[in-house]
């Protein structure tokens, strides 16, 4: 049943490999920036790397943007469930995840996280029809799992307007790590995902570098900003960061504002060695992002504004116990 009220802002499911690239942290910050402007809502975070520290980081960032209290979830002391991939933890932890967490997280172990496919499915059940988008930055493993759950393919078709995939190289190019990490999953998602898919190729992220100067300038309003701390820990400063996930997030929320151009429709295929290739076709439901030189500045300005935006505190529906 859909209520006859105005639809809320689009719900975003962010499926990332938090820790692998600082870009994912910036994209999460940007999503919170959209949320503060009531342009989008964080519907769920799923993490394709089985690292509890990645889940703790995301949870802590969510707490930070909730106004450093429990308002994010309407008063619950347990935040929104974070999906975390199964498997042995990685041998080494990304430097950005070793920063002490200033904002409290309830996640102590994988028990406090949820199965990624369940998180994605449950989040979709709570979205209005055609009012959700999925942003994938990392291997397609989680989405492939979600597609295997009974009735979930139909649920995706009903709820999701768009999948934005920050992986691959278009129209073709060298093998890309996110695709190579799980070639079978990438093939499944490109072949079976029931909605339009827009891909962000490797060259797009490399062309749009998030400026290190913004970290010192725009994030200074909070001395304990978790995104700034992660950025500084990820690599020796100063460095500018490629922005695949941010590009995907920006397009997912503002697809009609001409930040990017779109390729004609077609079909993306994945080769055995992890290369992606795009074949144009009228009936294809895949496209990829293209940018011209005059679009860079506006995109970077939008990145820095949104990712450094201050949270807007919301009143909980019911006071916490």
């Amino acid at each position, binding site marked *: 049943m859909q209520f006859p009220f105005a639809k809320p802002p689009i719900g975003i499911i962010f499926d990332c490999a938090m820790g692998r690239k600082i870009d994912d942290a910036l994209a999460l910050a940007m999503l919170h920036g959209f949320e503060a402007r009531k342009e989008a809502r964080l519907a769920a975070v799923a993490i394709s790397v089985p690292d509890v520290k990645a889940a703790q980081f995301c949870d802590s960032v969510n707490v930070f943007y909730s106004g450093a209290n429990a308002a994010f979830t309407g008063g619950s002391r347990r935040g929104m469930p974070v999906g975390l991939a199964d498997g042995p933890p990685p041998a080494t932890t990304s430097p950005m995840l070793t920063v002490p967490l200033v904002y409290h997280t309830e996640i102590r172990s994988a028990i406090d*996280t949820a199965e990624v496919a369940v998180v994605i499915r449950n989040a979709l059940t709570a979205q209005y029809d055609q009012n959700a988008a999925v942003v994938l930055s990392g291997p397609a493993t989680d989405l492939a799992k979600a597609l295997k759950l*009974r009735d979930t393919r139909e649920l995706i078709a009903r709820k999701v307007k768009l999948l934005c995939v920050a992986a691959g190289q278009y129209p073709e190019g060298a093998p890309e790590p996110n695709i190579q990490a799980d070639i079978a999953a990438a093939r499944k998602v490109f072949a079976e995902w029931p909605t339009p898919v827009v891909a962000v190729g490797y060259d797009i992220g490399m062309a749009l570098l998030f400026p290190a100067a913004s970290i010192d300038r725009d994030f200074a309003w909070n001395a304990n900003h978790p995104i700034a701390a992660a950025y500084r820990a990820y690599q020796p400063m100063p460095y500018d960061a490629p922005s695949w996930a941010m590009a995907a997030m920006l397009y997912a929320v503002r697809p009609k504002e001409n930040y990017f151009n779109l390729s004609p429709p077609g079909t993306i295929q994945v080769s055995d060695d992890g290369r992606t290739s795009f074949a144009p076709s009228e009936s294809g439901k895949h496209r990829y992002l293209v940018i011209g030189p005059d679009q860079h500045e506006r995109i970077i300005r939008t990145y820095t504004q949104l990712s450094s935006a201050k949270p807007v505190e919301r009143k909980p529906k019911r006071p916490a116990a």
Partner: protein
Amino acid sequence: MIITGRSLPRRAFLRGMGTAVALPFLDAMVPATAAAARGVKPPVRMAFVYVPNGIIMEGWNPDYEGALGALPRVLKPMEPFRQDILQLGNLTHNAGRALLDGAGDHGRCCASYLTGVHPRKSVTDIKAGISFDQIVAGQVGKQTRFPSLELGMEDARQAGDCDSGYSCAYTNNLAWKSETQPLPPILDPRALFERLFGNGRALTPEARARQNLYRRSILDFVTDDTRKLEGSLGPADRRKLDEYLASIREIERQIEKAERDNSQIEPHMEKPYGIPADFAEHFRLMSDMMTVAFQADLTRVITFLVTHEGTSRPYREIDIPDGHHPLTHHKGQADLIEKVTQINAYHVRQFAAWIGRLKAIPEGDGSLLDNCMIVYGAGLSDGNRHLHEDLPTLIAGRAGNSIKTGRRIVYRRETPMCNLFLAMMDRMGVRVEQFGDSTGRLDGLDLA
């Protein structure tokens, strides 16, 4: 009853005028043949005991996993049965959440509890789904007199709006025969008694009057059969039969007492004639009859809606005159939380007493409880915030040695409650691959 030289049939009854008293599991029912050497196992029974309005989770969840030690306040009454229970953490019913349907968590959580289905928000056009107990009943119910029993303790209407646009059919029933047909619970102990021990036909007014006039027990009507049977039993079985019949007699006495008491109380009391005014007494009567129903294999599937979801029943029995539901919206106020905690613990106390009685009844190589899996739970965890995750879930009994008890297992967040239902159906001998939003069978319950 015809007694042959061979073993006593499992489905034997003591019969008399308008009466059919099923027998408990007796040694004489085990064939003294090679088959017996392989072991005739008592059947596995399943029950759900549902309490409304959530639970104060600080008093429910131990702060540890693994072997059960000291239990928190609400669960404290279960301490004598630590080795017989399994406490499960983090099971979730996503179907109970709003999912764009706005207010009405009480209606949804009860309707989705055993169905795994997000119910349609409507007062008149109800739709949920077949509940999993009814799937089990449909398959194993042919082996018992009643495929299932649906019981409750609080009189409640079946129509009208009971929660923000959700029909009362959602808040007041646990079991659903089909997606549009809930099975209203039996509330009246007398009605249940006559259902269990009647011969399937309602007593005529004359017979009821004669029985009342002479205050005769149903056992008086089966005296001949009882004598015949006793003559053919060994000493252990005779003792078992005596105790069983005595327990039936005691139930009768309690029902008569409730009826006598109710004839003296004020006429505006809401309770129908025969329902004890005292909560604990009512619970005891209903649970005693559930015991007999399991003991005599009258059914293997019971759902028991202790009070209905969203109830505002006061608990004057424990000096709490406030309504249950309003108290649960405590907004963090310590005095209100304390009262809800007391209500929660009071419920668990009644449950613990029942579990104790099941444990005291020998059956096969263990106790009746060992062959049961009785889930005590609620469709909300935190009633103040209407949370549908980490639902309070406790299993008592080992389901015929197929569940390792004495532990607390915490699953990952959002683990579907329906995964537990699949695991329970397995133990009832019913193989189902998918139910509700299940993603697989709940693991970790086994002995291994």
